[in-house]
């Protein structure tokens, strides 16, 4: 636009020149005079152009420029064509939707060496799970929920609303994972480990939690009013909780959780998380209306160094129920997966997991992690043999497909022969080969 105005001014100057009278006898003087006029007009033009330039965004001509190098403060940031293109590409990446809908469809194939039918059929295959997930964050409000459909039950696993504070700490209200021990899982495999079946890993309850990080320190505090479904008699639940079944009429209420972890070498290629956890709850007995108690404490190490991961955990727990006379205090009844089972009222848990993430070049697979997970329950009451699980296997990811290939060995373990988490004396190692194949979106 400025150049257009400049042309207009030029034409005006020309018009002035063309209409001016010129005496023939003083041509040389006239030309000199005209040149002076021209110069004056040119100066005037320059002044006008500068004013125009000041009005427009276009830069002014060089006389006003200083010799200072790199006038980037005046010019803004220096960006070449090459970089601009990269920036344009970067900004062209669409913003992800604040709410994401996901889910999974999974199938299982398993072979149980200790079950004759399974041996005869050379394993069984079947539908494992269909789940839906909703996750999102709008401004500082966070939402997360998961609902599962399985052959045995349809159940909510988690569902909470959160708020993210300015310091990035988060408060959650709803059904969420209790902060205890190794997080988020105390295993790498599909079948999980003993702490899960004892209710001390990946256990979701209804309550409020606060999580914050201060450099290498991470703190999680939580309070759970009760188990997640508001009905301690319900057995269809994702993870084991104390349930009221038969003569065992206890339920866990008013539980406090605290977990503190420190990561040595945070944000390096070799991180070691050391953590301490504790929880304390009341055990309300519906028969006596009395209150017993429960506490548990754990220490853990989660070391991720290069492609290796070593997980160690030791935990101690006590359930001290207020049972009526005639009901044993040596165990409490847990319920999950549509069934119930007993857990020694006092015990110790040990976890030793080792995993390796294989380096893959340009292969079909995105991830291959192989592992050995060992976990053990040492029963302090009831006199039973320890319950043990050892799973050796690999998890393989390729795009949306993810599979676990696990060879599970168990001794005196729930769901394996006559194994039990309370008492029990099954001293035989039993095995199960399990392939779980899932499509995740």
């Amino acid at each position, binding site marked *: 636009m400025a150049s257009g105005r400049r042309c207009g001014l030029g*034409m005006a100057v020309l018009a002035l020149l063309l209409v001016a009278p010129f005496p023939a006898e003083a041509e040389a003087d006239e030309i000199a005079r005209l040149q002076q006029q021209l110069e004056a007009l040119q100066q005037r033009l320059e002044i006008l152009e500068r004013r125009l330039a000041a009005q427009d965004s276009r830069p002014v001509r060089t006389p006003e420029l200083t010799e200072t190098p*790199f006038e980037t403060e005046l010019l803004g940031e220096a960006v070449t*064509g090459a970089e601009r293109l990269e920036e344009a590409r970067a900004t062209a990446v669409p913003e992800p939707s604040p709410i994401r809908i996901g889910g999974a469809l999974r199938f299982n194939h398993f072979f149980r060496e200790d079950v004759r039918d399974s041996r005869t059929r050379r394993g069984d295959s079947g539908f494992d799970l269909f789940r839906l997930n909703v996750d999102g964050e709008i401004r500082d409000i966070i939402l997360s929920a998961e609902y599962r459909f399985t052959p045995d039950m349809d159940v909510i696993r988690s569902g909470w609303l959160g708020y993210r504070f300015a310091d990035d700490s988060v408060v959650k209200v709803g059904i969420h994972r209790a902060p205890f021990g190794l997080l988020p899982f105390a295993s790498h495999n599909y079948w999980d480990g003993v702490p899960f079946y004892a209710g001390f890993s990946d256990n979701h309850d209804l309550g409020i939690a606060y999580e914050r990080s201060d450099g290498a320190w991470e703190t999680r505090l939580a309070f759970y009013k009760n188990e997640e479904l508001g009905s301690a008699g319900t057995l269809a639940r994702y993870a084991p909780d104390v349930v009221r079944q038969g003569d065992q009429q206890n339920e866990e209420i008013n539980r406090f959780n605290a977990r503190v972890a420190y990561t040595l070498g945070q944000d*390096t*290629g070799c991180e070691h998380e050391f953590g301490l956890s504790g929880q304390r709850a009341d055990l309300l007995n519906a028969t006596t209306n009395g209150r017993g108690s429960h506490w548990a404490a754990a220490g853990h190490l989660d070391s991720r160094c290069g492609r290796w991961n070593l997980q160690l955990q030791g935990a101690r727990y006590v359930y001290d129920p207020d049972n009526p006379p005639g009901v044993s205090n040596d165990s409490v009844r847990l319920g999950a997966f549509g069934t119930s089972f007993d857990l020694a009222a006092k015990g110790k848990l040990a976890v030793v997991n080792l995993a*390796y*993430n294989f380096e893959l070049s340009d292969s079909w697979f995105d991830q291959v992690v192989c592992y050995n997970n060992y976990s053990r329950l040492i029963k302090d009451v009831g006199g039973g043999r320890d319950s043990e699980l050892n799973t050796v296997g690999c998890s393989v990811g390729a795009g949306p497909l993810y599979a676990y290939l696990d060879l599970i060995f168990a001794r005196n373990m729930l769901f394996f022969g006559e194994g039990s988490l309370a008492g029990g004396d099954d001293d035989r190692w039993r095995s199960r080969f399990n392939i779980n194949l899932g499509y995740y979106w």
Partner: protein
Amino acid sequence: MSILRRPTLLFLIVLLLVPAAAADRLTVVSWGGAYVKSQMLGFILPFEEETGIAVDVLEYTGGIDDVRSQVRAWNVRWDVVDMELFDAHRACRENLLVPFDHDTLPPAPDGTPAREDFLEGSLLRCGIGNVVAATVVAYDHERIERAPERIEDFFDVQGFPGRRGLRRSPKVNLEWALIADGVPREDVYQVLDTEEGVDRAFRVLNRIKPWVDWWRSGEEAVRLLETGRVSMTSVFNGRVFDAVQRGETFSILWDHQVWFMDVWVIPRNGRRQELAAEFVRFATTTDSLARQMRYIPYGPVRRSSLEQIDPEIRRQLPTAEENMVTAIEGDAEWWAANLDRLTERFERWLERPVMVPRDRPN
């Protein structure tokens, strides 16, 4: 008429009428922001002033689609375009550009022919280079425990502790990975041309992957350094100058800088090709490039332009002699042919964690 009897006056009038009648206008297409401003102040306004030819400057965002459609329709509205090098190669191969006669370029002030004055590779069959921008390693010399001296140090997280910043692109990263693995700079693209070579580069990147924060824009790269999140990062050299002007204590490791350049090209079938060529010649004179460099910290493609720049400033430009000793010229043609394929592989590689993932499908 008396006026017609005055030839000198008539000549003056004709001279004035030529620009005023807007017969000679030129449309130059470039990028935006500070870059085009440096061009305006460096040579576009002086060109207008010296020739009386009005220059209309348009912005674009790269690529050759517009040029292709104009040329094929014989309706060329863009007289001169400032293209990325690999776009210029593509457009030239597609016969969309006018070949440039390098002998018409003015020599350096000391008489050095243009062919010797321009940096190697900056005189293309269909275009003339203008400025050079480089990707370099930068660090905060006030914070870093031990300053890197070679590009290999960037990949040595034991000897030079701290996190690293890298651009989320295979470009430059693969070149540096091979250099760190002992490949001579002149063989880098030859090695990358083989699957084994690409595997080798990714293996080197694997070594530092757990320590890397990936950035997409130059601004992010600078922020990583400013906040102390990383101890070193790759970054476009111009960004470092900006940060230093703001008071940051950043330094550049020039070893194995990877440089790319922008190129002036003239689309075929235009009506003002001669004028366009005149503009390109003017825009790439020693004086024009030196003048432009006052306003943007990138390197001129003429050696003689460098000589006109203050030595203190000159040594901070990518094309300074001492900075070019181990420099790698980004192979625009190679990347034009391989960028899509390697970006796909790079993104997939990026998604694969090195550490055992904390979370897992469940």
